[in-house]
């Protein structure tokens, strides 16, 4: 049954290998029209879209690259500035410390000088007062002793030169006594 129909098909008017020329013509014309449309409008449109996309992507990548480079440069600058600032700060600290030390030293020195000056002044004053005290005491003690002695021995000792000599001897003795006493006190101290 099937073989019969196949034979019929092969022998009959509808051999599948024989073309229908009008179909072929329609296909040729249709295909050429399609080819024209594709060449003229479709392919350029797709190529353009494709190209713009590539450019957009590449542009975006470049932009990102630039931004990255910029950010890196900025970071490097910041780091440099930060380093500079740190160095500056530590230098300033160092300076301040040195200055502080210098100020302290100066003040110490000044204080020491002042102290020495005050001490010296005091000693000088003491020495001067002591000298003046000794001087006034010497004169007063002499006159007091003379007075006392003249009262005790009367007018016998009116002679000035003699009495002066006596007074001097007395004072020298007194001085010797005093220095002996001072030596004793210093030794005791």
């Amino acid at each position, binding site marked *: 049954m099937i073989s019969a129909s196949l034979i019929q098909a092969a022998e009959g008017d509808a051999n599948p290998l024989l073309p*229908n020329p009008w179909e072929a013509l*329609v296909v040729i014309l*249709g295909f050429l029209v*399609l080819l024209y449309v594709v060449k003229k409008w479709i392919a350029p449109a*797709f190529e353009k879209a494709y190209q713009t*996309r590539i450019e957009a992507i590449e542009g975006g990548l470049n932009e990102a690259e630039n931004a990255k480079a910029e950010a890196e440069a900025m970071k490097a600058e910041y780091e440099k500035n930060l380093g500079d600032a740190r160095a500056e700060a530590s230098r300033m600290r160092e300076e301040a410390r040195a200055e502080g030390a210098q100020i302290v030293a100066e003040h110490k020195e000044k204080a020491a000088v002042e102290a020495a000056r005050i001490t010296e002044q005091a000693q000088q004053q003491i020495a001067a007062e002591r000298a003046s005290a000794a001087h006034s005491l010497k004169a007063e003690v002499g006159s007091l002793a003379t007075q006392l002695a003249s009262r005790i021995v009367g007018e016998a000792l009116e002679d000035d030169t003699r009495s002066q000599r006596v007074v001097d001897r007395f004072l020298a003795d007194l001085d010797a006594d005093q220095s002996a006493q001072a030596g004793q006190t210093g030794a005791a101290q």
Partner: protein
Amino acid sequence: MATNEGGFQPPTISETHLPEIFPWMAEWGTGFGKNMLMVILSVIVISWFFMWAIRKQSLVPSRTQFIAESGYGFVRHTLGRDILGEKHFRQWIPLLFAVFFFVLVNNLFGAIPGLQLPTFSHAGPAYALAGIIWIAWIVLGFRTHGPKFIKLMTVPSGVPKWLLPLLVVLEFLSNFIIRPLTHSLRLMAVMLAGHIIVMLAGSGVEFLVAQQGGLDGYGLGALILVGSIPLYFLELIMMVLQAFVFALLTAIYIQGSIEADAH
């Protein structure tokens, strides 16, 4: 359709040629039939779809634009750039694109209920398209290499001299006669076979259910109906594959023509 009382009569190949819609030009053969209408429809559909899909050319494509761009990119890269090479492929994109989608859409017509006829199951359209490519191939060959093209295509290099007479004849037949025939018949035969299977299943189901009836008639009819579903998908794969193969061979022939001296 076979409606005799005796038994089932399978549909014949004559029935793949449908009666013409307009008896126009009928005195030279057939009139204007469904097949021709579908060819024109395919041209309109392809042109309209791709022009509509790319009309905005947006950087971030819509779904339609994405699908269209994927189709275009497939032809551009897989068929164009990968085969023709970075140097030549750009000018051939339109031809490859038109060939691929023309064949694809016309094949897919066979899978659309109502149309259900792959245009290339008829020999005429297949010969016509393969013929266009054959002519393009030869013209390109002569334009690239001049008259030397014939020698490049028929005289293989590096064979003993005494073999040459035989080989030249064989090469000539193979490249200039058999190549366009196989190019067209491969497509036509696969589409015709698929179409006959669909017809056979359809008329078989109709016969079993409408004519024979009964438990075995309905059962067998249902079985064939279920079995035709995987066949449908197989056909679908075949349609896409044949479109791809046809366009791929087009690209390979063009490449052979451009670089005939390299082989």
